[in-house]
């Protein structure tokens, strides 16, 4: 897959995983596992990129006497998801046209 496209898809997948409820690293990996396999280092890079872009915020909490980071989606993150959905609809129209020509 084109790296640019893959990167965009990964961002949206991770945002979707924290959309309804704040989540933490391992839970995100487990939730996304049926759709795509993410390694810890890839997830780290995505989370960092999304945090730097203001699409999510990080909250540090204590869990069983140790630190656990929770990721929370921001309004820009939600906007990004909405934008992805509308773009994807356009793309699907193009796809249907191409498929029909095959």
């Amino acid at each position, binding site marked *: 897959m084109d790296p640019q496209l893959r990167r965009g898809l990964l961002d949206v997948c991770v945002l979707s995983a924290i959309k309804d409820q704040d989540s*933490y*690293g*391992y*839970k995100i990996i487990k939730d996304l596992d049926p759709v795509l396999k993410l*390694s*810890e*280092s*890839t997830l*780290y*890079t995505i989370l960092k990129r999304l945090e730097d872009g203001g699409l999510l915020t990080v909250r540090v909490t204590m*869990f*069983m006497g*140790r*630190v*656990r*980071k929770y990721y929370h989606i921001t309004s820009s993150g939600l906007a990004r998801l909405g934008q992805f959905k509308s773009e994807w609809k356009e793309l699907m129209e193009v796809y249907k046209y191409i498929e029909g020509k095959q």
Partner: protein
Amino acid sequence: MKKEKFLSELRSKLKGLPKDDLESRISFYEEAINDRISCGKSEEEAVADLGSIDQIVEEIADQTPYFTLVKEKNKLRKKLSVATIILLILGFPLWFPLAITGLVLILVLYLVIWILVLVPGIACVGSLGFGVTCFIAMFANMAIGDPWILYLGASIGSIGVGLMLIPASVYAVIGFVKLSKLLFIRRKTKLIKREEK
């Protein structure tokens, strides 16, 4: 492998990363292991789940910009002393041409490599061009009543060779790009591990 051993080994192989990036990555892995243990895995299983350390280091090398790593490496260098600076200024007429020569040499080497990679492509375009020219020449010879069959033969042969060279040219370029990428990641991995002096 135990958690502490894994984390200290990982840390020692990521020395080339900026300090805050290193610390936040290590704590990310620590949390990843702890979360797996909380889910009922044993410490060894949790560590094994993350993959081999070398694999992780290579992935991180791939994701980290080259510029960041070089900048981090340069931080290790000592500041120039006054004597060195004076020497550098005095020696300018000597080292500057040498530096330029070095740069030009590297550029030429790079060009030569690219030309070698492009040789099948150039041969391919040449053969196709020659084939088409022969084909046109064939009609010219036909018109003036000269023997033209030779031109047809040369044209078919040449175009055939040209067509056969197309995959070779494509593979040469793709292969070279892949090789360059591989070498680049390897170089970055070395920088992260701080393997060289």
